[in-house]
């Protein structure tokens, strides 16, 4: 297989404003970097799981041993960014007189904190009307200083200029974008991910892989994002099994963190596709963790999409490290799906939707199909997805 011709839209834009610092123990740079941004009175956003694991304490130590003042710790963040947590977080930020935020956690924590910072920057106290606007670009201004430490290698929320917010009332996930909501600096410190259990390492890693694969195969795909997405796929396919099986392997943890950030820098410019649309519905209606839902749906959606853009799945197969140089494009593309199934097996992700109580009946499938069909990400899927197609995909995932 020679490198195929890969088309892209004649106009595209690519952006990422976040500065990235990487090193084991890079947290030692926190005080200097935050003071450079003008912050001095810090509120730390995290969740109870991260605190209990002693991870946020490692950041508190850096703040305590510096000129910075720790104004408070807000750790009441639940799974999925929620309106109430966001509004409470902003009230807390103001009540302790903070002028900057440090965020330590996974996607839910980072997305909650992004929304909080928008409320602080705009002087508002209720995020719901903003979330309903979906795009907050009109008159958007830079926000107060914000440094993020991701503690999972999956979401890449530290660099994306969007957040996904769960609307508990309507049981749906709203995607909201703002040009300055991502962190000013993302500090990738793999030491903070060493205690992540194998199962969570596995499905958050599959989240990152889904970002990269859907970013590269999206209708918005373009060459700069391709470079990031394809290298993320290379790193994940090599290092995810190691990170799952040898949790303390700092090289694997570090490469996974880098890969998840790169995958996010890819997909936040190109968007994703039907895997994400179905995963959002599964998360909103059945509480399935986002990375797990992506892991379940990814090979099925890839299989469905292959006929539309085999050349893109062929380069994905190549990035997955498969020997495809002698293959026809279509053969190489098909191998990418099998490789994803084998990777999931290798990292112990054998779950199906049935394991999460989803039943093969209209009562469950109807709302899932309706929600996935109206998810914004589905517009970026390379193959047009009808409601019948979604029904078939959910059926296959049972």
């Amino acid at each position, binding site marked *: 297989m020679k490198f195929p011709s890969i088309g892209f839209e004649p106009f595209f834009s690519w952006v990422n404003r976040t500065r990235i610092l990487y090193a084991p123990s890079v947290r030692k740079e926190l005080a200097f970097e935050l003071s450079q941004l003008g912050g001095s009175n810090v509120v730390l956003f995290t969740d109870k799981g991260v605190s209990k694991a002693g991870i946020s304490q490692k950041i508190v130590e850096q703040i305590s041993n510096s000129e910075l003042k720790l104004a408070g710790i807000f750790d009441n963040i639940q799974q999925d960014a929620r309106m109430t947590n966001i509004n409470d977080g902003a009230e807390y930020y103001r009540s302790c007189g903070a002028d900057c935020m440090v965020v330590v956690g996974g996607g839910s924590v980072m997305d909650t904190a992004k929304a909080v910072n928008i409320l602080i920057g705009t002087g508002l106290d209720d995020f719901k*009307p903003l979330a*309903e606007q*979906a*795009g907050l*670009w*009109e008159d958007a201004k830079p926000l107060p200083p914000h440094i993020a430490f991701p503690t999972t290698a999956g979401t890449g929320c530290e660099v994306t200029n969007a957040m996904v917010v769960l609307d508990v009332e309507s049981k749906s996930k709203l995607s909201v974008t703002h040009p300055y909501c991502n962190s000013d600096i993302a500090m990738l410190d793999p030491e903070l991910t060493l205690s992540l259990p194998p199962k969570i390492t596995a499905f958050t890693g599959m989240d990152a892989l889904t970002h990269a694969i859907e970013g590269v195969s999206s209708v918005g795909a373009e060459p700069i994002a391709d470079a990031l997405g394809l290298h993320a796929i290379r790193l994940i396919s090599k290092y995810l099994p190691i990170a799952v099986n040898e949790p303390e392997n700092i090289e694997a943890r570090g490469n996974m963190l880098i890969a998840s950030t790169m995958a996010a820098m890819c997909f936040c410019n190109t*968007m994703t596709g039907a895997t994400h649309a179905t995963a959002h519905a599964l998360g909103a209606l059945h509480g399935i963790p986002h990375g797990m839902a992506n892991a379940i749906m990814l090979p099925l959606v890839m299989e469905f999409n292959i006929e539309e853009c085999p050349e893109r799945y062929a380069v994905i197969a190549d990035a997955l490290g498969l020997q495809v140089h002698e293959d026809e494009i279509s053969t190489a593309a098909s191998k990418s799906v099998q490789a994803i199934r084998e990777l999931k097996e290798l990292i112990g992700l054998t779950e199906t939707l049935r394991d999460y109580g989803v039943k093969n009946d209209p009562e469950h499938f109807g709302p899932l199909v309706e929600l996935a069909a109206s998810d*914004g990400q*589905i*517009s970026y899927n390379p193959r047009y997805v009808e409601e019948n197609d979604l029904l078939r995909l959910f059926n296959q995932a049972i």
Partner: protein
Amino acid sequence: MEYWKDQHEPITAFLKLFEKAKEDPELSEGLKKVNQLIWFDYTEDGSDCSFHVDCRNGQVVAKQGKPSEEPDLIMSLSADDAHRSWSNKLNPVMAITRKKIRVKGSATGLLKLAPKLKKVALIYEQALNELNFLDKILK
């Protein structure tokens, strides 16, 4: 304007689109679920260049001009970008990030219909055909 001779042409085309979209059960149901009074504001291309759609109370009524009541949602853009959008050549989410579309009010309901733009584009093409606006069809 790149595609239109005057400010009335786009409104004629867009009202025809909504007239035909109402006949499609999926789009009609989708619009009713939005349940909002929406003003599509293209007045940057002329003071009469706008229309509104009332999707409240289980109906879908599209009329020229600004609504007499306060709209729940205002989508402001140029008539050319609206043409690109209905032709599925302008992604609405990307357009919001580039300020080609300015949103005021809750857009979550309408954005749920964004995945249907491919279908909308087919209906729009039929509408343009019926109006003999053949030169405006984007391929």
